């Protein structure tokens, strides 16, 4: 077994699959997260994001393929792997009977690199009462307490499963701010899952779109946006059906006006559109949400 190597990717999976009885939760997923990236895992609930997180944590074994954390197998080398990860689970499952300061010293015991000054600074910044019982904290405060516990040993890889799901805007700001600080100040790597696409679009520089356990798309946010186009066409005559254009992933509209989401080089798309009895009245870059909806729809249609 190799120990972590300086050149190894913080997270890399190859042909990764996992099934539960008859459900294929992850199916042949391959991607690599480079150091310093903020990597967004995007997908609907049940797409397989949490399964991927659990595989990264070594809580599950792959049915096929591999997942490596800094080159290490999280199932074979749990201690060495977990020392490098700061993990926040979706349900922020913390022991309710502990007081916050007890939770902090309890968590610190697992991590030789725990930085108590840093933990205290975060606690003050998040305005968490050290004497409060975890059970008495609000949902947002529990999320922040979980984040504090995930970050205080300054892990080179932060894994956050739906970190801001169901939280109010103020706590979401705190959590996103902490992600940004982690990357800006220390060049650490963050992998976070979310179904809030505007949030991912702001914070992530790389994304993987997952649908029904399969990787639909992965790459840099800029590359993804540059490869997709949103075009509104105005036809000379009303159209009964969405226009067929190569590269089109989705169409909305009706009558004389249709908006298409397309993938490909703009010159190629332009010449394909020129064949239609229509003029281009608007050409923009789609939002991540547009891309996801268009790609997810296409994927479903192919099944």
């Amino acid at each position, binding site marked *: 077994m190799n120990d972590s190597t300086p050149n190894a990717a913080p997270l890399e999976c190859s042909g990764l699959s996992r099934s539960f009885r008859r459900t294929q939760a992850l199916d042949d997923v391959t991607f690599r997260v480079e150091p310093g990236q903020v990597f967004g895992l995007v997908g609907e609930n049940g797409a397989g994001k949490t399964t991927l997180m659990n595989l990264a944590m070594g809580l599950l074994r792959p049915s096929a393929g591999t997942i490596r954390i800094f080159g290490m197998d999280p199932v074979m080398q749990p201690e060495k792997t977990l020392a490098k990860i700061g993990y926040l689970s979706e349900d922020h499952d913390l022991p309710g009977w502990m007081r916050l300061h007890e939770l902090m010293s309890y968590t610190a015991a697992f991590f030789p690199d725990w930085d108590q000054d840093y933990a205290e600074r975060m606690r003050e910044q998040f305005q968490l009462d050290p004497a409060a019982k975890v059970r008495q904290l609000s949902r947002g405060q529990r999320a922040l307490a979980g984040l504090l516990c995930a970050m205080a040993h300054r892990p080179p890889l932060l894994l956050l499963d739906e970190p801001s799901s169901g939280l109010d805007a103020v706590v979401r700001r705190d959590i996103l701010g902490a992600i940004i600080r982690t990357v800006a*100040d220390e060049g650490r790597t963050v992998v976070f899952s979310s179904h809030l696409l505007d949030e991912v*679009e*702001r*914070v992530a*520089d790389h994304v993987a779109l997952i649908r029904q356990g399969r990787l639909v798309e992965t790459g840099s946010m800029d590359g993804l*946006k540059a490869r997709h186009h949103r075009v509104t066409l105005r036809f000379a005559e009303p159209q009964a059906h969405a226009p067929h254009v190569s590269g089109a992933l989705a169409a909305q509209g009706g009558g004389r006006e249709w908006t298409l989401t397309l993938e490909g080089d703009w010159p190629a798309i332009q010449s394909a559109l020129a064949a239609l009895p229509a003029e281009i*009245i608007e050409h923009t*870059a789609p*939002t991540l949400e547009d891309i996801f909806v268009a790609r997810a729809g296409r994927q479903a249609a192919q099944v």
Partner: protein
Amino acid sequence: MRIHISTTDTAPIYAQIVAQVKHLVASGRLAPGDEVPPIRALAQELLINPNTVARAYRELEAAGLFESRQGSGTRVSAKGTPLARKERVRILSDRIDGLLAEAHQLGVDDAALLELIEKRRRALRPKEDTP
């Protein structure tokens, strides 16, 4: 430096920053020599990826609007004025293009549009001080 990022906006986030900074410089709200926030401070404030801010700053430097010097942070370039003038023309050209397209869609011809502009100018002149 007031910048507003929207993910429903179709432009990429770095391009939104570049466009808004150019706008601020062109309108004089950012003056030559003004200090601009450090990359990580702006990333924190806008809650966006620091690499995105870095990319916007690089483009603004390449365009000659920003100057960064070791130790003294990033400032609005002192020679920003001629560029700002070009930028003003570009901003207005974009608006005019949109206006022309809309007039065309609505079936308003050029002469009628020019007449309308003149009419609006006279209506607004007393309230608006022109530079």
